[in-house]
């Protein structure tokens, strides 16, 4: 399924030269969850419903993440969202801009967001092409009527409310559903590898975002006031334990253990890592062994959510 030989012989020299000559860089990788409740609670002008706040621990976490990157220069954001679910390979938004109304089909009472975002089509296509070369099934999405999923928009808004950076938006290939967590992870690690290569070859400075929750068992009911924080808690003790285990790995730079335990975590915590985002993210960062910065943790309708930054620029500076 994943071709071991990524490049033909004729490709090797020019591609390697491209890598050597470029100054492309991943300045940071972030776990940046997307429950629409966060945008709802922020009351941005783009979102129709209004809230009395709520989920502050996570929203303050996003504030800390934005502050952490405030003085970091970058050109684009590469984002993988589990709510653009594709079953026939991995897809990439392939038009320069998308403008429409996104209504969450699950929480339409909270999220009806008027978005207007730009795509770095060149970088999208570069990652697409390298993924194709690596044997992954990929497709560019070039239908102008396509509506961008709410996961992309929520993470996009919470990470960069100014929307002043172009995005590369990658779909979630549901290979876990078709095969297993192990196969999903093999494919996502490969996709992460080519994503990294494409970024380095592009000469651009990029932030990579995995838009997913940790444990993902929802409540099936909702309080009369959705932002009533007296009703918010983790779905179960077992979910809490799994979330804390993962966070400990994040904070201590044990990324390989995360990958090693991904099958158990994904199945036992019903984790949203099933969409491949976390595996992909760690692969784009070359499986970091330096600590991630935990900017926040909180629950949303029972699910566990962490905001984590791996400042690869620091890692790179330290290693230099």
């Amino acid at each position, binding site marked *: 399924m994943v071709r071991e030989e990524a490049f033909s012989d004729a490709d090797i020299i020019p591609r390697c030269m491209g890598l050597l000559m470029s100054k492309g860089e991943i300045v940071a990788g972030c776990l940046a969850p997307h429950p629409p409740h966060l945008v709802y609670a922020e009351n941005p002008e783009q979102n129709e419903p209004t809230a009395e706040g709520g989920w502050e621990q996570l929203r303050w976490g996003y504030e800390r993440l934005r502050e952490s990157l405030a003085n970091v220069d970058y050109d684009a954001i590469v984002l993988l969202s589990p709510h653009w679910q594709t079953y026939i390979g991995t897809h990439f938004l392939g038009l320069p801009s998308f403008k429409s*109304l996104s209504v969450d089909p699950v929480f339409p009472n909270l999220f009806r967001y008027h978005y207007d975002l730009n795509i770095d089509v060149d970088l999208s296509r570069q990652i697409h092409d390298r993924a194709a070369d690596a044997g992954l099934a990929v497709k560019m999405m070039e239908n102008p009527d396509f509506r961008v999923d709410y996961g992309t928009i929520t993470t996009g808004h919470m990470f960069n409310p100014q929307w002043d950076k172009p995005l590369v938006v990658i779909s979630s290939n549901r290979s876990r559903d078709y095969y297993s967590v192990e196969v999903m992870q093999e494919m996502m690690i490969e996709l992460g590898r080519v994503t990294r290569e494409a970024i380095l070859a592009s000469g651009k400075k990029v932030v990579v975002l995995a838009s997913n929750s940790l444990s993902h068992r929802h409540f*099936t009911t909702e309080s009369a006031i959705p932002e009533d924080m007296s009703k918010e808690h983790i779905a179960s003790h077992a979910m809490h334990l799994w979330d804390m285990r993962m966070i400990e790995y994040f904070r201590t730079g044990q990324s390989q253990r995360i990958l090693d335990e991904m099958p158990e975590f994904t199945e036992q915590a019903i984790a949203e890592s099933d969409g491949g985002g976390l595996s992909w993210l760690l692969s784009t960062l070359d499986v970091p062994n330096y600590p991630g910065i935990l900017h926040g943790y909180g629950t949303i309708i029972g699910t566990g959510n962490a905001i984590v930054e791996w400042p690869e620029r620091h890692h790179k500076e330290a290693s230099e």
Partner: protein
Amino acid sequence: MSNGELVGSYIVPVHPHTVLAADQNEGWGRLRDAFSEASQRIKDSGADLLIIYSTTWPSIIGHQIIADPNPEWVMVDNDFHDLGSIPYSFNIDENFAHAWNKANEKRGLKSRTVAYHGFPIDVGSVVALKLLNPDNAIPAVIVSSNVYANRAETTVLAKACMDVVKSTGRKAVAITAMSLSNRMFTKPIDPLDDQIHSLKDDEWNRKILEFLGEGRLEDVGQLSRTIHQQIRVNKVVAFKPMWWLSGMNQNRNNLTGEVLAYEALHGAGGAVVHLDPTASGAGDKEYDEDDVEYFLGERNVLDAQNDEEGTVNQSPSTAPTQTNGPALWEPTESDDSVNSNAAPKPVGAYPHARRVGDLLYLSGVGPRQPGTNSIPGGPIHDADGKTLNYDIKAQTHAVVENITRILEEAGGSINDVLDVTSFLVDMDRDFKGYNEVWAKTLGKVGPTRTTLAIRALPTPIAVEMKVIAKAPVLE
């Protein structure tokens, strides 16, 4: 009560190929023709309402029902965006949607209507309505598929829907938008090369269609879990539309079925099936699953931090606990008392049961739930004394469950019950429902029984039972 009815049921595929690319593959074209045939049959039936249960609209917070009278947008599929766009403008029966929502709530379901501009109608519903109702002549209603719903919840959803169909006198058609086997090829294919993904999937699909062709809908419903394990990719939604459709058809197995088409859609199994309510003449088979009327599932999770789990090992206290209703007490303890953390707290200083010799004497047992103190089936009046509608069957079931918990705490079982005195606050209204549940539960155990009408009980409940049971032998 009017005489509304279901005049037909249909199973249709969800992929956009039948709308956008029917000319690219002969099989897709045959599915399109079958949609047209089904559309004509619906018109000929005189149907005045289309009810769609769509597997491509997953929900988390209970079930959602479209209530926008005229949803309009342009649908693009997540995977097959290169096939094109599908503009839509549908005719939704908002009144029915709201009535169904209320009926759901009356039966204990979490439910809400959705009427927001720009709400994304899912691909399965768009395909179904574009092809079955191309001129929007028949108003429709669309319901989501809850990712966590089990068979009981899905069955109650169907019963609530039929409550409204009957009470409003509608001639309704039930439609499930779904695949059979749903494993697609994971790479693009030439349309001419389309086929069912595997021989195994094809064989299962043909067996399902054999059943449906014979009108054996409930048989497929009972096989749903097996089918899901065998030929379904583990997507968010399980193979539960058959539960809903069977519930809409009173779990019958003797419908008149006809498979109008069966073809591959990028490897998945797509079929158009018509199930006519006319009895096929075949014997109706047993229905061996719980015929639930009221959903009693976990709905108090948001109050979990208020439950008493953290205090179960503390010493019993007779101090009343402040709750919404009469004060609750810790059950009193003595050498022969039997108290259970799995039973609702008393409303006074008494134990759940006492053991005397070979007998257990239980205090009056009502339907209140342990921990939350909620009343399945709803309270009979609110805090201001305003009368409320409630479900006597759900309350009676809950009483029996509480009795069972107390007896199990004592080391026995429901089969130990010898004598029951039942108290009803409204004999005229409730005796029938109470008696039905009795027959299915304690009636099978066989205790003696006395049923009394009384003016009120301490909490807003309609039924309470006083039980004497055999005490289990102590080791």
